[in-house]
């Protein structure tokens, strides 16, 4: 196998960081949204459901373009961000996280919501009769019962973030060591006809993802937590 260049190693490391942070943020952000969608009877439910799925519909570069506008120093989010942090938001790691989170949100919200809906209110009622507050019941009953949904959400969110390219390229500017992730590195190698390196990186990415997914699924199977 071809040795990875410094540039590629940096990209790999950045990608792993981005995927990990994004999945974390996605699960944290996605959980309350999914929970609300699963349990509310509000008329706005369907509207929010549709809105959550919307980022998916735009081509990534186009979504990236709009995000770029929003996060630029003159943008709706970028301007206040600059004011408070004294740093530009676009072309930063944070921007990548925000963009990836937004783009992968439906992959997290939808499976979680489906899980929460399937669980229904019965286990929560039961927990409430055993002194469990709603939050306690969520943590001790609903979330472990939704494990299958969390696995799906995490896998889709993780894989999608690894492979994401258009949005990240647009918002991050592919700055090595800062915003140049593996997917961009592979793309660059293809563009410069450096196929050997592209194959090696793709193969490595696939292998790594495969092993990660295999581990997740194996652990999932071993866990005694399974509704049915």
């Amino acid at each position, binding site marked *: 196998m071809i040795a990875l260049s410094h540039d590629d190693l940096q990209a790999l490391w950045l990608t792993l960081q981005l995927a990990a942070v994004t999945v974390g943020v996605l699960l944290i952000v996605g959980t309350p949204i999914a929970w609300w969608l699963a349990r509310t009877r509000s008329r706005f439910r369907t509207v929010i459901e549709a809105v959550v799925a919307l980022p998916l519909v735009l081509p990534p570069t186009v979504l990236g373009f709009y995000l770029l506008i929003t996060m630029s120093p003159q943008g709706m989010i970028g301007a206040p961000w600059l004011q408070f942090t004294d740093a530009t938001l676009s072309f930063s790691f944070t921007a990548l996280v925000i963009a990836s989170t937004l783009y992968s949100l439906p992959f997290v919200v939808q499976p979680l919501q489906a899980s929460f809906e399937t669980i229904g209110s019965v286990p929560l009622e039961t927990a409430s*009769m055993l002194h469990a507050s709603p939050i306690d019941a969520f943590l001790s009953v609903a979330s472990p019962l939704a494990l299958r949904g969390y696995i799906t959400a995490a896998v889709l969110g993780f894989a999608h973030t690894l492979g994401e390219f258009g949005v990240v390229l647009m918002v991050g500017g592919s700055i090595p060591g800062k915003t140049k992730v593996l997917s961009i590195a592979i793309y660059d190698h293809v563009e410069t006809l450096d196929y050997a390196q592209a194959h090696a990186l793709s193969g490595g990415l696939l292998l790594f993802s495969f092993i990660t997914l295999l581990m997740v699924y194996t652990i999932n199977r071993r866990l005694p937590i399974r509704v049915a």
Partner: protein
Amino acid sequence: MNRLEAQFDIDLPHFRLQADINLPGQGVTAIFGPSGSGKTTLLRCLAGLERSATGRVQFEDVVWQDEQQEIFTPPHQRSVGYVFQDPRLFPHLSVESNLRYGFTRTPAAKRYIGWNQVIDLLDLQPLLHRRTHRLSGGEQRRVAIGRAVLASPRLLLMDEPLVGLDAQRKREIIPLIQQLRDELHIPIVYVTHAINEVLQLATTLVLMEGGKTVASGTLSEIFSRLDLDQYLDQDTIGAVLETQIEAHEPEFGLTRIGFNGRHLFVPQQRLPVGHALRVHVLSRDVSIVVGSPPRQTSVLNVFEAKVVEIGTMSHDRHSVDIKLDVGCPLLARITRKSVAVLNLTPGQTVYANVKAVALSHDLPGIP
């Protein structure tokens, strides 16, 4: 003072619950009524799991719900234990974790029953390390009862908890409920279709029909009603007598009780002489002798009685219930043929044979 009072009016699709109950703050209240009459819905309302636009619940001094004043204590703050009609074990937890769920969430100071005590009484030790989803129906029920009790609730709601258990298990579990009732003074609202559970456990009875609480009161009040027939198993109709402990005969395992100057032998009671005791005499356990009182019979309890009323035919088409007067009402079930042979007429004096083994029920004094 210590009472559980509740009024609900809740309109569900296809069903309306209009309940008004006022129960003593201790003892077991049996909710009795045909399938679909709203028993479960009533329990859910009490627990706060179902909320009605016009509802009020007061338990002891605390108002849990008063929609007019916009008071609503959420279910988990009511310290209610609920044994649901279906076991509802948490599928992601082992049997032990299920049992510990409420136990660990109860501050040690508020626990009134010990882990080992419950595990032993319900014979849960062999199940502790099992997964829940492959337990047998009866095993699941025992775990559900244990889990509710281990959370040391201040009010316990039980929806047909002994269904699906074999006779032996029932005999083992009933003392646990009696202990909650008598020693720990935990009020229990108990839904059942089994009259013998009512007789062994209940101090108060609420009758439901078509979503309404049609009657409520002490066992003897309710049981003297004639229209109960339809709710009850024919084998469980009978009179409730107010008696007093007169003497114990430990050599035979019997206690003599008295009422209106008559005596009855019942299985030995752990109550002091002079204590009040209500007993239930099933009409099927009472037979009638005309002429001279029978001697030399294995039946210990024989009274002179007056025929008050000859009932209408029961559903089995061959027997009738005879209402007798032995200072208080007593019911005897005999065949129509016997009515004819004995030529029974109201006013006639007869002898009532009561088999000593009639089911009895001790009712500790309730304010």
